[in-house]
């Protein structure tokens, strides 16, 4: 994977800060051209988008709610990426993870709230992890490429979910394929309720306790990847599998470990959507969030801090985009999907597009710095 270690000997701030920023600007510039083609003003669009995402307190709730999904799926993508794996299956793993959460809420709701929440979290993580385990095992032991197998598993997940919701989990007497509503205590508390307990007035939004769990997961991933032995092994396999073997690290075991954690994290997106927002199982609650995770993780350079920042950006895009579609009749919500595609293209695939423009300047800076250091030494 072309990540920070493929930086052509550039300083870290250039690879992790300057290039993504320049590429992001390029993606937005092209989006501006698209808006011009639609016959609207890009400047007004930006104003409407920012106002829609941050302009009022309710907007913040929605922005952070979208960001919650992206934090989970991006963390999922990033941990696989650190092991050199391209997990395109976040969408399917999140879908099946949501099934695990939903089954816990539907069939284990004899448990009290404070037991049910951890059980649902474990259920979502287990189901998501199991869905990632099969491609992981096949990659580790039988050499089948995880990119193709996880794509296939996305489609299999979609088929499984339609079957289950149409034939098994559907509420009797209902026409639309969805389960019954969860019991009152089988729901994650909404942010406006939790703020209410603290005496703070917060508008009603889909934002819920899963957001706090997402922040905690970001911290846990950071600790795991950079401050544990397992994380070290995982990154070693990602950087150079042959060297890992010499160091006594098993690539196969780490591939499975990385993918299983990745699937579990993707499954947490199901927690937010199923237990936090919809409070029942239904079709297509993943709505492409698994794929957005790829963009967010690339943008955030596969680092939890970067992912939090990029999630906020994408959450704002989603929320702001919805408001923008209200205000500009010729612009629809799909503008956000277009921007997302452009961001993946520029930040991910065309990473080094603008490098030639910067290289002389960066080299000059470096030469000036070393000359200054040499001069200082002579004095």
């Amino acid at each position, binding site marked *: *994977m*072309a990540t920070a270690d493929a930086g052509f000997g550039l300083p870290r701030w250039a690879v992790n800060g300057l290039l993504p920023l320049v590429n992001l600007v390029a993606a937005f510039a092209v989006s501006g051209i*698209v808006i011009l*083609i*639609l*016959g609207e003003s890009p400047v007004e669009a930006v104003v409407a988008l920012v106002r829609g995402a941050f302009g009022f307190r309710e907007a913040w709730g929605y922005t952070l709610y979208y960001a919650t999904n992206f934090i989970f799926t991006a963390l999922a993508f990033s941990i696989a990426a650190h092991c050199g794996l*391209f997990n*395109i299956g976040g969408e399917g793993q999140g879908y099946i993870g949501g099934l695990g959460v939903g089954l816990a809420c539907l069939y284990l709701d004899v448990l009290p709230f404070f037991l049910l929440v951890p059980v649902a979290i474990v259920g979502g993580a287990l189901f998501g992890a199991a869905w990632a385990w*099969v*491609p992981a095992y*096949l990659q580790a032991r*039988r*050499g*089948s*490429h995880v*990119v*193709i*197998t996880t*794509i*296939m*598993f996305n*489609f*299999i997940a979609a*088929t*499984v979910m*339609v*079957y289950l919701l149409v*034939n098994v989990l559907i509420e009797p007497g209902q026409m639309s394929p969805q389960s019954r509503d969860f019991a009152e205590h089988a729901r994650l508390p909404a942010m406006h309720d939790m703020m209410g307990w603290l005496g703070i007035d917060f508008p009603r939004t889909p934002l819920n306790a899963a957001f706090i769990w997402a922040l905690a997961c970001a911290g846990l991933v950071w600790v795991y990847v950079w401050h544990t032995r397992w994380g070290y092994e995982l990154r070693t396999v990602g950087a150079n599998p042959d060297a890992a073997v010499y160091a006594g690290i098993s690539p196969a075991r780490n591939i499975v470990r990385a993918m299983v954690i990745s699937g579990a994290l993707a499954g947490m997106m199901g927690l937010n959507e199923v237990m936090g927002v919809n409070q029942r199982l239904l079709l297509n609650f993943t709505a*492409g969030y698994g*794929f957005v995770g*790829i*963009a967010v993780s*690339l943008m955030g350079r596969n680092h939890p801090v970067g992912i939090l920042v990029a999630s906020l950006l994408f959450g704002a895009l989603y929320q702001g985009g919805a408001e923008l579609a209200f205000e500009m009749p*010729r*612009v*629809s919500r*799909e*503008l*956000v*999907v*277009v*921007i*997302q*595609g*452009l961001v*993946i*293209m520029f930040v*991910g*695939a*065309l*990473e*080094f*597009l603008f490098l030639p423009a910067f290289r002389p300047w960066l080299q000059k800076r470096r030469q000036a710095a070393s000359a200054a250091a040499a001069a200082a030494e002579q004095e």
Partner: protein
Amino acid sequence: MEQFGFFILLLDATLRVSVPLVLAAIAGLFSERSGIVDIGLEGKMLGGAFAAAAASYVCSERLAAAGLEGLLPAAAWVGLAAAVSWSVLLALLHGVASIRYHGNQIVSGVAINILMSGLTVLLGIAWFSQGGRTPQLPPGGRFRPVVWPGAEAVAEVPILGHLYSELLSGHNVLVYLAFLAVPLAFWVVYRTRFGLRLRAVGENPEAVDTAGISVAGMRYRAVIVCGALCGVAGAYLSTAQSAAFIKDMTAGKGFIALAALVFGKWRPVPTLLACLLFGFLDAVAARLQGSFDLEATTPLVRALVDAAPFVIEALPYALVVLLLAGFVGRAIAPKASGIPYVKSG
């Protein structure tokens, strides 16, 4: 006799649903044989479908306004040209990212898929305001069935007459084009100088470079062919099979085509057979739903019958996973696929 007729209809449906799969899979074959992994078949097809429907609609409107109804069939060809051009542009974007800038080919493919799923609807709503659809094409503005000579006359002849008039005759020109594309691809890949170089550049680009042939040049040519075929597949969906573009109308066909390509081990004829198999499964699943009388059966049988269409739907994906895992044969991708070629020195 009635069963035979049903079978013919099933095969006929198989042919029709296989067409976009065949075109997209052969498209992917050219790209991947040159060493460029392409998971953006879906996006290119979708973009092509939109371009074809939009262009042929606008063109047929203009022709009707000018009172030239006789020229309406030209609109379909204008649509096809638009689909191919747009899809080739997307293929070149993928090419520039992966060949010129050594970008990650998976990332680029994902980007094209997402970009097209958004852009087609965004432009569709802005231009036609029908919630992402394009307006219905007039009958003349799309690809029409071609009735073979004598098809009507022999339609009543048992078996051979049926085969001729139902299965062979009465498809549109793109269907025949798709099935001609396979032997053509076989010939190009295995019997021409271009094909030899194509295979070499996907297996061992260093050797091709040493022979004085441009690796980048070969790969650009391969992605252009890939884009053109994806464009035809898209045009088939929106201007031949149906008469308008519908939001997300490819619905995973690009990935089924990719699966067929893997299943056919990156070779034209086995890939065609895989496409026909997946198309057949699709046609069977469509006919299976609600075709049984379930009143008299046991709950277990009923549950199995309920699950059958879903099992059949998931079968192509499951088969590919099994194949890749080496449980049914072995699929080995071109050696250099997915690896950017960096000239040393």
